């Protein structure tokens, strides 16, 4: 068997608690001053990739790939610090204006020549949350896929994976490799980058590819027309004052208004 090569597609997204505002064209958020982080499900995909490589015990490689502007480099360095062997940065300044198919095409163009044994990515991103990139990637690469995976192991014939279904149900799926898996959060405990890892990451190779070189721009399949603030579904009574005052007011409301105490 040839050495295992696992590609992990990673997205950089605004930090979870980052204050968001709509940009002036109302077609995306204002990005200046925002802090960014690795998309959490992708962090789990990376973790699964590192574990698979370690458990195989043979010479193998984990390659992190990400599309986005220059700032994406920090997320790729984080992946390298955690144990990825090298990275591919698809430099692309207009990621947010591309639809899921267009982004997956970029990733597929970068991944195809690598001939991976396995491609992993998080099941969805925390910004757009479309939950499609991995599944589209599989189609573009002509590979089988399994989604919402919490556990994966290599077998003699390919892979055995544990897939999460709704309402606490699971199933095992067997599929041949190479394949694409989309990873659900929580399957493993995430590792931290060690000091040694951070130091090593500085010398690991990051290859940059220009999005424009990866293929033809095609007409968008869907258009994100406008970003808006959500409408309140209920009129929420906000209780103010000190913690004690708010708590007392709430208990009063729950008892006499909502009648649920």
């Amino acid at each position, binding site marked *: 068997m040839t050495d295992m090569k696992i590609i992990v597609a990673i997205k950089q997204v605004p930090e979870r608690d980052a204050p968001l505002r709509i940009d002036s064209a109302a077609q995306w958020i204002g990005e200046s001053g925002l802090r960014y982080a690795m998309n959490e499900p992708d962090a789990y995909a990376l973790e699964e990739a590192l574990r698979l490589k370690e458990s195989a015990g043979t010479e193998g490689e984990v390659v992190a790939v990400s599309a986005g502007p220059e700032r994406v480099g920090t997320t790729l360095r984080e992946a390298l610090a955690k144990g990825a062997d090298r990275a591919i940065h698809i430099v692309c300044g207009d990621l947010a204006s591309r639809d899921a198919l267009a982004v997956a095409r970029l990733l597929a163009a970068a991944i195809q020549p690598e001939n991976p044994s396995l491609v992993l990515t998080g099941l969805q991103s*925390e910004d*757009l949350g479309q939950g499609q990139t991995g599944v589209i990637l599989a189609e573009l690469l002509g590979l089988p896929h399994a989604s919402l995976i919490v556990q994966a192991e290599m077998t003699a014939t390919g892979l055995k994976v544990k*897939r999460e279904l709704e309402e606490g149900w699971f199933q095992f799926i067997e599929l041949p490799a190479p394949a694409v898996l989309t990873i659900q959060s929580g399957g493993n405990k995430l590792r931290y980058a060690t000091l040694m890892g951070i130091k090593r990451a500085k010398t690991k190779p990051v290859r940059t590819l220009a999005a424009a070189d990866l293929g033809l721009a095609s007409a968008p399949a869907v258009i994100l027309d406008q970003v808006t603030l959500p409408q309140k579904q209920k009129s929420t009574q906000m209780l103010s004052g000190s913690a004690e005052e708010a708590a007392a007011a709430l208990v009063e409301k729950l008892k006499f208004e909502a009648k649920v105490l």
Partner: protein
Amino acid sequence: MSGILVVQEARKDGNTRAFQETLAAGRVLAGYTGLEIEAAGVGDSNSNLFAEFIGPPPAAAHAIEHPLLSRYTSDGYVLAFEQLIRKLQPAYAVFPHSYQARDFVPRLATRFSQALISDVTAIESGPAFVRQLFQGKMNAVYRHPGGGPCFVSIQSGAFRPDGTSGGVTTIDHFTPEIDAAQIRTRPGDPFRASAQTVDLGSAQRIVGVGRGIKDAANLPLVQDLASALGAELAASRPICDNGWLPMERQVGSSGQTVAPKLYVAAGISGAIQHLVGIKGSQCIVAINKDRDAPIFEVADYGIAGDLFEVLPALTAAVKKAK
């Protein structure tokens, strides 16, 4: 047909709530486009696939039948729906946003050089499709430029099935061409990880805890409130992922669905995956330090404040009121 194809997910128990909601979404779309609705689903002649429609029935229903589809696989479903859609050429194909649809529809859409507009919460004139961004903190309005079918999936609970049932429609049987070798995955039987010993579904009061609690060591703060209220303890996904509470206490799309009289969301931002699990609650209280957290959009009462101050104060106030 050049109309709207509403897709039903195959379940042993016949028509699902999700299908009726998807059909309701299809009717909203039909209202804006003037197009006719047809339904499709995988199931053999013996299944009661299109046994019931809430509201007016679709103009026709297509039962996709093939022995290789008796068990769901993405490869099988992509092949089957690809052939049906090429035959019918609908302008729109509308799916429930289920785990199953998430697994195969993006792949199906790619075969048509299309991208699925997923997890749609509202349809407006245009038609325009509204879906959430940033875990519910923002909304996005999407449009389809035309030229090929537009693939849409509908969020659970977003559209209300309305009207009388009892209407029937003609059922067309469609047998796709599928070869066993084209199905690359081998799915096993579904199972539950452990016997569910906590039934949150019937709890009258629930205190749910989220990331805001910061550390497992702080959990006694919510446990104290829960016991003062006589409530069950529940959690959003990250808490269970971290192993701070067992998976069986998870509420949301991958956990349990609850409908208590009182649901207190403590340090839960209100990502959609959690909200779908608590929609049936009679009264929702949100405590969160972020005033813009989406949980406040669905809460009846809110306290924007520090969990670590509010929780002990609330526990004390509840005890005092008894």
